């Protein structure tokens, strides 16, 4: 893979006197100059409200916004850009389905199937929606290697299951979930599948059509794009029947004092002034990712995972969670020590300029189920290097010297 580090200005800074080693990419990624420049360019040259005016700036701004929608549609292999709804992130995307699609399609006694490795944002919206309509929630369990197996999914499927909502990749275990197989199984039984792609879209080549899911949600900020924008992809057929999420300006064809007629999709789902610069920035991010090549990024990450798994295994007392095989993970590894708290390790690493995450990573139920304390999570991306991982490994050893 070509050297990408020069594209990320933030990688030149120091933290506590050492060069920054940024290993918290699962929380949010850094942004290449191309993305930031695009946003600046938008505001300096094109800023104007979209879908509103007939003046030049408004038309150009609309073109950029809709152009970004097309780039993203192509990036995830959607049938057409009308299937791409801009939201503020994965959380909002999932809430929209829970708030609008669930009440219209599920009834009392129906079951929503989740898995035990879900992020809070793929649990709570369903809990709330289920509570309101009297539906039930069941959980698919990960196996000893932190994987979701098709056998386990089969076991949990019944006539009552109407929706499976599951992560494409875990933000704690790193596990890649076999979405395609799950969709095949589900669709044979008329079950809908919603995918939380927050941790997959940055790392894997996504094609929503070949995955065969019904909904796919992801966030711009974890894949080199700006914060505050994300995507909900859904099949056009589903969107046409879906009630708008918010009501207001921009999403109507005709309004009278009594009622309103909705605009076409996807505009129907984007009431109010949208985050145009955010969408444009995400468009630049997926262009950047495509130019590097998702396969190249994936191979680089597998290399790093192999290297880091080997290195971590040498450390005495370490407990690594998630799949043992590098190619079953995206770019992250979480671990813990029984008598040393994850915050303390993260603090020592921070003195060396190394940014890692410690805690429960918005996945309390999983930590409780595995009966493990909070974990340290190391998550890497296209710009991380083996040299950085060496510094990390030495840092962990140093932390252990100080703390035990």
């Amino acid at each position: 893979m070509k050297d990408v580090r020069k594209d990320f200005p933030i990688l030149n800074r120091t933290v506590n006197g050492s060069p920054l080693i940024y290993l918290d990419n699962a929380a949010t990624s850094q942004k290449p100059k191309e993305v930031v420049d695009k946003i600046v360019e938008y505001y300096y040259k094109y800023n104007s409200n979209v879908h509103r005016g007939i003046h030049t700036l408004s038309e150009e701004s609309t073109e950029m916004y809709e152009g970004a929608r097309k780039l993203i549609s192509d990036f995830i292999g959607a049938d057409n850009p009308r299937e791409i709804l801009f939201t503020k992130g994965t959380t909002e995307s999932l809430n929209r389905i829970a708030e609008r699609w669930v009440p219209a399609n599920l009834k009392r006694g129906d079951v929503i199937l989740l898995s035990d490795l879900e992020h809070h944002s793929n649990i709570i919206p369903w809990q709330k929606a289920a509570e309101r309509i009297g539906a039930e929630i069941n959980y698919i369990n990960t196996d000893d290697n932190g994987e979701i197996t098709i056998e386990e999914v089969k076991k949990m499927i019944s006539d009552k299951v109407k929706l499976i909502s599951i992560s494409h990749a875990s933000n704690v275990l790193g596990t890649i979930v076999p979405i395609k197989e799950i969709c095949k199984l589900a669709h044979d039984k008329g079950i809908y599948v919603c995918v939380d792609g927050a941790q997959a879209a940055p790392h894997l080549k996504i094609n929503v059509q070949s995955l065969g899911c019904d909904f796919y949600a992801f966030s711009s900020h974890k894949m080199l794009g700006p914060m505050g924008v994300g995507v909900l992809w859904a099949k056009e057929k589903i969107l046409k029947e879906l009630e708008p999420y918010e009501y207001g300006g921009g999403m109507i064809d005709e309004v009278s004092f009594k009622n309103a007629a909705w605009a076409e999709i996807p505009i129907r789902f984007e009431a109010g002034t949208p985050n145009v610069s955010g969408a444009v920035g995400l468009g630049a991010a997926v262009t950047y990712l495509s130019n590097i090549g998702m396969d190249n990024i994936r191979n680089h990450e597998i290399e790093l995972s192999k290297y880091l798994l080997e290195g971590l295994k040498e450390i005495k007392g370490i407990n690594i969670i998630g799949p043992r095989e590098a190619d079953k993970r995206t770019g992250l590894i979480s671990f813990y020590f029984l008598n040393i708290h994850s915050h303390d390790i993260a603090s020592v690493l921070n003195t060396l300029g190394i940014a890692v995450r410690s805690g429960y990573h918005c996945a309390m139920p999983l930590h409780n189920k595995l009966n493990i304390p909070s974990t340290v999570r190391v998550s890497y991306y296209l710009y991380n290097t083996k040299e950085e991982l060496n510094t990390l490994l030495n840092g962990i050893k140093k932390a252990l010297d100080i703390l035990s």
Partner: protein
Amino acid sequence: MHDIKRDEIMDLYKNPHNKGYMSKPTVSVSKKNPMCGDEVNLQLKIDNGIITDAKFDGNACSVSIISSSVLTDYIIGKSINEVKKIKKNDLLKLIDMNLSTSRISCASVVFSALQNALEDL
């Protein structure tokens, strides 16, 4: 973390005072750190308005352990009214670790537990 290396602080982390559980506490309160979910349990024994014993336990990081150790040491022997006057900043001064914002929330868990415990009295 430079501070944590200071010997006395590290010693408190490795050999904290008042850690564990007492039998029949007058009050026992568990409090979670909203940032990370770690939990500290604080127990007080109170006689005639005086805190005669204090203990803490839980799954906690070094900052939380040190803070709990210092706070329990500080309140033992004091009256409820005196202890009610303690402010979070007083505790941060006592532990004197030059903490970042995120670690202040670790140090504060035991303080919130103490406030909860005193509420009911």
